[in-house]
Each structure stands twice: as C-alpha cells, then as structure tokens.
C-alpha cells in the first residue's frame, strides 16, 4: 500500500534527515518506527502524509506517486490518513464531540451524517459520557482518545501516530495500544513512531529501526533493540 523507493530528504538548512531509504508497507500492517531522536522518524511520517516532498526518490501510496500529486489533491489524501500526535492537537474551545465532528465538517459532511457517525466512534474509544466536555476538562489519556476518535471517524486506510504515548502514563499508554490493536484488526494500517521500548517489545509487531537517516533494521515481530 505504501512504498518508498530510494527516498532522501535534505532540508533547506542542509540537514540530511533521510538517506536513500526504501520501505514497503502492506495493507493492514502494524509497524513501529523506532530509533533515536533525529534519526528520521518524523521526516518519514511527514513524507507519507505529504507535509514534505522527498528531495530524491519516490513515495507511492495506493499506486500514486505523491510527488506528482497536485496540491489540490493533497487534502483528499489526508482524509484517508488519520493522524495522532504526542501533543494531541485538539481545538481548545470545542467539545470532544465537536473536535471529532470537525474532521467530518471539513469533508463537507451533512449534520445528519455527523450525528450518525460520531457517537459510535466515541463509544469505541470510551468517551461517550464525556462528549460535551472540552479538552481542558479531560485527562491526557482521554484527550489522546479524542484525538484517535477524530483520526478514525473518516474511516482512514492508515493511522500515522507520532509518539502517541509520549505524554501518557504507562497504564493509559496500554489502553491506547489496545485501542490501536482494535483499529488494526478492522483492517486499518498503523504506523507508529515511538520511543516506548516496553510497548514495542510486548506487541511483537513489525519494527523498522532508523538511525542517521537510514534503515538499520526491519524485522517482523521484532523488539525495540538496545544497540541505539
């Protein structure tokens, strides 16, 4: 579903974030991106959602080269990708319900569709009772689950999670991982960049390790690894 062919990314300030990286991700996979800070994990996720374009090489999603994609097509690509971040990125003055509904409003969905689509998603992440609260009234785990609800409400084919457990305590992190496994079982591909070695080790999923802009290790049902 996602292919990277000899992708290099050099930023304008000369920083070489990725160097000749090739990677193939199949539909329905659950992948951990690991490696030290600055290894290129964030650059890789930015290339996949086309926040950045590769300096060299090709990123192909569902058979389409992102370099050839027109700017006005990018929003439609992003609607197929649910994004989850360490800092949640919720809108502070909107309720949980409204934050999730916002992802649908953007696509031009009708009020009727929104009212039908949001409650099941909130139920799935266990926030149906907190739908009318604003982010400041929620715990970190609840905010992150709101973020996940927003990411999946559009039925994306891919979830891109950039250190989603970075601000969560261990127990809450495991709740989130159970949620991700649930979503993954329904056929959604998940790519998760993380430093949480205990989670990576316990989950026994594919692990892609990055170091200095190259892939140092790519193992099915691997572990975090301690060499880095």
């Amino acid at each position, binding site marked *: 579903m996602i292919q990277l062919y000899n992708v290099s990314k050099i930023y304008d300030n000369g920083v070489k974030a990725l160097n000749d990286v090739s990677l193939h991700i199949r539909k329905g996979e659950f992948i951990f991106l690991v490696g030290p800070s600055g290894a290129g994990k964030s650059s890789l996720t930015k290339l996949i*959602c086309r926040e950045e374009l590769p300096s060299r090489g090709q990123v192909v999603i569902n058979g389409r080269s992102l370099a050839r994609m027109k*700017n*006005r097509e*990018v*929003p*439609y*690509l*992003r*609607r*197929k*990708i649910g*994004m989850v971040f360490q800092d949640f*990125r*919720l*809108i502070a003055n909107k309720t949980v319900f409204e934050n999730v509904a*916002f*992802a649908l409003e*953007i*696509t031009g969905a009708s009020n009727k569709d929104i009212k039908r689509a949001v409650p099941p998603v909130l139920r799935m992440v266990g926030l149906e009772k907190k739908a009318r609260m604003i982010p400041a009234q929620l715990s970190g785990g609840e905010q992150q689950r709101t973020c996940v609800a*927003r990411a999946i409400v*559009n039925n994306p084919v891919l979830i891109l999670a950039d250190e989603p457990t970075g601000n969560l305590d261990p127990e809450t992190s495991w709740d989130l991982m159970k949620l991700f496994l649930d979503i993954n079982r329904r056929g959604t591909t998940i790519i998760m960049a993380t430093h949480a070695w205990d989670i990576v080790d316990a989950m026994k999923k594919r692990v892609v390790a990055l170091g200095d802009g190259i892939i140092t290790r790519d193992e099915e049902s691997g572990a975090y690894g301690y060499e880095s």
Partner: protein
Amino acid sequence: MLRNSWLSVASIGTIIISLLILGSSILLVLNVGYIASTVESSLEITVFLEDGVEQDRMERMEEEIRFIPGVTAISFVSRDQALDELRRSFGERADILSGLDEDNPLPNAFRVKTREAEMVPAAAQQLGELSGVEQVRYGQGVVEKLLALTHWVRIWGSITMGVLGFAAIFLIATTIRMSVFARRREIGIMKMLGATNFFVRMPFMLEGMTLGLTGGLVAALIINFGYLSLLSKVMITLPFIQLISDPALIYQVLGGLLGLGFAIGALGSAISLHRFLRV
C-alpha cells in the same frame, strides 16, 4: 470576528475616509458638470459690436460666426431689443430708463451658443478676433473657474483616494495576517485533517469582506445623509443653484462606494492569504 479590534477599527476607518473622499469628489464633479450644463448663460457668449457697423457687414459676420467650431446657435439682438429686455428686467421700475429712448447707449450684439461649456473660452477668443467686434463677454469666468475646480478635484481626489485605498488594502491585509497568525494552530489542525484551501481560507476571506463592507456601508450612509442635508440647505439658501437630486444617480454612487469597500476588503484578504497562507 473582531479579534484584532484596534487593527480592524483602523482598517474600517481608513476605508471609510478614502471612500468619503471618493464619494464627495464624485458628487462634486457630477454637480459642477450638472450646474455648468443647466446654467444657460454659461454656454452663451455675448458679442458686442462696434457702433456704426454696416448692415451687410453684420450679415457677413453672422456667416463667419457660424463657421467657428462648437457654435450651435446665433441670434442678433439689436440695440432697441436690448433696451426692451433691460426694461423688462427692471419690471415696475423701468421708468429709470425712460431717458434712454432717444440716446440708447446699448450696442448691437450677437448671442452665440456653444454645444458644451468647455468650448466657450476658445470660441470667445475667435469671436474677439473678428473685425467690428468691440467686446466679447461670457459668464464672467464662472465656467472656467468651475471647470478648473473639477479638474483639480479630479486630480487630487484620485491621488488621495489612491493613496488611502492602498493604505486600506494594506491595513486589511495586516488585519487578516494577524488573524491567520492567531489561528495558526487551528489552521494546522485543519490541514492535517484534510481541509481544502477553500475551507481554510473562507473564514478569513469573509472577515476581510465584512471589514470592507462595513467601511463601505458607513461611508455610503454618511455621504447619503450629508448630501441630503446639503441639498435641502442649498434649496433654501441658494435656490438658483440646482444640484443633482436624481435618487437613481445618488444610489448608483452609494452602491459604487459599497461595492468598492467590499472589493478593498476582498483584495486585502486575498493578498494576505496568498502571502501568508500557502497550503
């Protein structure tokens, strides 16, 4: 909507002032043109003839005058007719003139009309060069003064309007830029969720257009009430001056101001979004 309130007020204020200048300049120019066309005498030149010009010379003069560009009508006023007219204009007190019948001091004259007020000075100069002409008189320079006034109003009105218009566009652009800056986090979230450019930009376009439209509306209202009160004052104190009172024309001017305010708002926000909200 008014997140950056002082900046919003400044941009609305600038739009109002520039549109007020534009609106009053337009009305002034229109009215001067209107007055110039309605004041009959401003189009009329009186050519006084020297005493003792022969009848056949006067007939030839009439032919020569006809060939002067812009001349549309000529009428001959004999010294007797002129005295009659003078007597009529004095009405009941015409007895003052009673002694003049035997020794009429008034000269023979032609009254010449031109097609447009602008043509009067040139025609008058040519008339003055004809032989047998003692003096040429027309509107005592009123026409020239009015036309010179509209000339300067046009130039200075355009310049101030242009400068203030640019200032207004710049201020709108700055307001929108601040607004974009204040909401950059939300914009980032919208883009991440797959919002189209149109969806992201629309609220800011609306904000700019609202600012512009508000300015245009206030300016149009001020011009409207100001002009109406001017009309009624002029009607009472200077009844011989006729100003434009055709509502259709006034509404056209007001509508123009409103539309221009809207355009300034739209242009300002479009410039700002083009520069600061590339997606």
